[in-house]
Structure formats: C-alpha cells, structure tokens
C-alpha cells in the first residue's frame, strides 16, 4: 500500500472537515477521491501533500512516516485546480523548477524538460509565458512540472475543474493514457462522478468528513454501501420504499407480474433517445422512470396512461 492514512481528524474552527478518516491508497494506481463540495476530499489531499496539517492521526507514504514532514520533503507532485503556474517564468523554466531546486546538472535538466514537454505536447511553447497558454495547456504544463521531480505520488486537486466541458473530457482521457504510460501512484480529487467512474481504478467516496465507501467503479456502482453512495453515483428514484436507478424499472401497461406497483403517468419528457416518465403511484409515491424511445412507443405511453412498475431482475437497490 502506497499511502496509509490513519485516524486523521481536521477541524477548521467549528467545522469538521475530516472525522477520523482511515484509508489505504494502492501503489501504481489511479485513485479518485470523490464527493460533494465541502465534503473534505481536498483537505485530505492537502494533508497527504503536507500543505495542511492534521489535528491528529498519521500519514505514511510508501512506508515512510510523513505526518510531520514539510511538503518539500515528501517527494510528491501536486497539481492545483487553478494551475498555480509561476507567472514570471517561461513554460520550460516552470517545468525545470523542481530540478533546479534539487541542483541537478544543467544538461540533465534540459534533457528532462524536453522529454516532459514532449510528453505533454507543449514542446513548441517552451519559451512562452504561462499567460500566453490556454487553460488546458497551462494544466498540462503544471502536470509536467509536477512529474519532473519524479514524485512517489502525484496528487491532483480538481485538476480539470476550471476547464470547459470539452477540454475537460480531452484531458481526462489524456490523464488516463498518461497514467498507463508513467505508472506513478496518482490520487485526484473530483466532485464529478462521471469523471471518477471513467478514469479511476479505485474510488474513495467522501462525504461530510467521512469515508463512505472504497472500491472499484464497478463495485461502487453495483453494490453501493448506502443511500448516499447510491445517489451520488447516478440518478435514483424510490420504488416501494427502496432506492433504485430509474432505468432499472420495467414498465408494463397490463397487470402482468404479481407485486407490480400501479400508478398513472403524470408527465412524459423526451430527451433524445431517452424518455423520462414521472409516475404517480396509487400509494402516493412519485417515481421517475427512464426507458428508451422505442420501448415507450411500443407500449403507447402518454400522459394519463395506467402503468405497472417492477424492478428489473438484477437491479441495484438500497
């Protein structure tokens, strides 16, 4: 295990940011810390980096006790949401910073910087100032800068949070490919469940200062530990008092199976290939159901139709 977090507590005044958090983050993997804003995930990342200190508890990185080490002694790479580019230095100088601090010989620095700029596709911008780059380019520069010092772990704090949707998606794919090439233990913070599900090998769900669940994307999606994880990882609705995903509900217009819940359609909303129904059941539940357009047309569903709802076989329910 690469990073061991044990019983970490952190308060900001009255606000409990982390409440007795213990978690192990595996070596060589891409781990996402996922949770809503203000849930404590960034605080945890900053405590791992040494940029904040825990009130109590311990951190060890690759077997080295790091709880009281200052950030510069932890051999980590940190990427900030707003890039934290050194504004008065060229792109090449930014990337070289960590190496110059370590007093590496000049030719080695130059070779390494060129190699990294190649890796992040910024070679032709080596002599520009950060202000002359786009947001996505700046973040790639920040990543190259963090990788230059060959960190034991790479920590990214909402790395794509400040970018627009398209660049965000590009960089997300690119980070995954980069990680497959470089294999450095990587932890990134995100509040976007799609980002976490798509990129991460392992996800740690954090809410209100506590770890709700740790697992692979599949484990989390298929077997959520509680209501919170279930509802944070995708859309949910209630059917018969249980949380269920709207696309896991089967709709019928005739009372076929026993135990089906009866109701009437109060609203039909078409979004592209998908149809979203709001069903008011006879016992007074409001259920959201998603089905494909073809299916809806086959059943001939319109507002006011009587329908019978069932959970599909193998549906995730909490």
């Amino acid at each position, binding site marked *: 295990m690469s990073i061991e977090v044990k019983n970490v507590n952190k308060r900001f005044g009255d606000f409990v940011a982390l409440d007795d958090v213990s978690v192990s983050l595996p070596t060589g993997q891409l781990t996402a810390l996922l949770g809503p804003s203000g849930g404590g995930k960034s605080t945890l990342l900053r405590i791992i*980096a*040494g*940029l904040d200190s825990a009130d109590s508890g311990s951190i060890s990185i690759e077997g080295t006790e790091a709880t009281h080490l*200052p*950030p*510069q002694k932890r*051999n*980590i*790479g*940190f990427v*900030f949401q*707003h*890039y*934290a*580019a*050194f*504004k*008065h230095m060229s792109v090449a100088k930014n990337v070289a*910073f*960590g190496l110059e*601090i*370590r007093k590496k010989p000049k030719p080695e620095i130059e070779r390494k910087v060129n190699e990294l700029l190649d890796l992040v596709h910024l070679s032709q911008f080596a002599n520009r100032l950060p*202000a002359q780059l786009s947001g996505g380019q700046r973040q790639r520069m*920040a990543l190259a*800068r*963090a990788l*230059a*010092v060959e960190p034991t772990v790479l920590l990214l704090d909402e790395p794509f949070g400040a970018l627009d949707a398209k660049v965000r998606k590009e960089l997300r794919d690119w980070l995954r490919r980069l990680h497959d090439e470089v294999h450095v233990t990587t932890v990134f913070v995100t509040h976007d469940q799609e980002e976490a599900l798509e990129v991460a090998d392992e996800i740690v769900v954090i809410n209100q200062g506590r770890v709700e669940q740790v697992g692979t994307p599949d484990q989390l999606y298929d077997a959520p530990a509680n209501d919170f994880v279930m509802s944070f990882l995708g859309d949910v609705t209630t059917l018969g008092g249980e949380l269920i995903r709207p696309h896991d509900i089967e709709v019928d217009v005739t009372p076929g199976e026993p135990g089906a819940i009866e109701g009437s359609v109060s609203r039909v909303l078409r979004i592209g290939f998908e149809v979203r129904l709001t069903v008011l059941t006879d016992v007074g539940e409001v259920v959201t159901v998603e089905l494909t357009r073809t299916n809806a047309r086959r059943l001939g569903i319109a507002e006011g139709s009587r329908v019978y709802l069932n959970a599909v076989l193998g549906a995730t329910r909490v």
Partner: protein
Amino acid sequence: MAKRLSERRRERGTSSSAGRERRSKRAQRAHHSAAVGRRNPALTWGLRFLVVGYLLMLVLWPSWYVVQHTFADGLTGIQTALQDPDVQHALLLTAEVSVLAVAINLVFGVGVSLLLVRYDFPGRRVLSALIDLPLSVSPVVVGLALVLVYNGRYGWFGPWLEDNGIQIIFSWPGMVMATCFVALPLIIREVVPVLEEIGDDQEQAARSLGASGWQTFWRITVPGIRWAIVYGVVLSLARSLGEFGAVKVVAGNVAGETQTATVLVQQKYQNFEQTTAYSVSFLLAFAAVLCLIVVALLRPKASKESR
C-alpha cells in the same frame, strides 16, 4: 478598512491598463468632445477653467515661483548654496537618513506584508489598522513621542542607552527612526494588495516541488511583488526626503550636525538667506519629481509584466 483595500485594488487594476487607456483616449478625444459638446459649452469651459485654475494656484504657480527665485541670478544662487558647508552637510545627511530609513522599511515592510496576508494570528486586524497610524498622526507628535521614550535624561530607554554609549535623540539613530515611522505604511500598502491578488498557490506549488521557505520567497514571492516593492520604495524615498516635523523635533536642529535639508530650508529662510533656501527647496523638489518620473517610467512596464 477592508473596503479601502478593495478600492485600492480596483484602482490598481485600472492603473495597470492606464498606458493603453491613455493612448486610446487620445484617439477617442474627437469622439468624446463630440459627446461633451451636447452639454452646455459655457459649463464645460467653466469647469475646465476651475480645474486648471485650481491646479495653477495651488501647485504650479508656487512651484514655479521657487524655480524662478532659485535661478533669478542664473546658476550663481545654486552654486553659492552648494558651497555652504552647512548645506552640503544637510543634503548629505538627508540622503543618508532617507536611504537608511527606506532600507529598513523595505525589509520590515515586506516582512509585515507577508505576515498580514499569509498568516492568521490574534491581533492581525489591529496590526493592520496600526500600520496606517503614521498617515493620520502628525509627524510632530511622532517626534515628541520618540523624544519622550528615548531622550537621555528622562526617557524610558534613553538613560540606559546613553549609559551604554548610544545616543538616539539629537543624533542620527533618532532621525532614522522618525523617518522610518512616517514612511512606514507606504511600502506595506503597496505590497499587501499585490500579495492578496497573487494568492499563495504559486508558493504552495514551489513548496510541493521541493523548495524551502527561503527559496520560495526569493524565487516566487519576490518576483511576484517586485513592482509593488519598487513603487513603494520610490514613494517612501520621496516621503523620507521631504520629512520635516518629526525629524526637526528629534534632531535638535544643530547646523552642520543634525540639520536635514528641509529643516535647513526653514532656518535659512528665517535668517533672510532666501536664495539658499530657494536653491535647497528646488533640489528637494527636483529629487521628488525625479522619483515620480521613475515611477511613471516603471509603471507601464509593470503592467506589461503582469499581463
């Protein structure tokens, strides 16, 4: 207080593009005057006359008067003045005291700015308010306060210091202290908004890349605030050169020993050596204008950097 800071920051934001604005303003003047022309022309001219007249009566005419009197007999006035050993000594002393005070304020000012912006501690707001005190308290009061604390006969520390061979009042340490006090806020008030604006992201990034606190300060923080520092230093220098009240009270006004240029001007004027008084005044004013020119030349460069 918070409001004042934010206002200043806004001013800074606009002044950083002042160079561009000035250029485009010239291009737009035709357009603007057309818009103004729709108002009452008499009012427009009246307002212009008022503003120009105000500046003329308050600043330009008196300043011009000094220049005129300095050069009434060509360069002889200034030459005679510069040959007076008291004048030479006073100018040198002013320069020495100012440079020393600015140097001390530079180190202290940057330190306090970092403390105020980067650290949270009990009494931070009080300290921030206290720093503006020298702007509101009369320099004469500052001088008197220093005399009370440090004079050799009945001050709090004075007798003890004097016993150990250190004289503060009626000597250069007191003059430097007085000058430091009055120029104290200038560097801090320049540096603090810039530090707030750049944030500590870059510093944290440097730390995470292995830089020590000292390396981070020199490689990241200082380049980020360098133009604020330059501007603050120039302003403090101008303020220090012109300081009168506090220094006069503290220095004791002994010609050729503890008399600075401003105090000398007053004395010479009262002793009917007007030409000398005017000449030294001119030199002081010239130095101040030089400071302002340096700032004006630096400013556009600074804005280009920050963009």
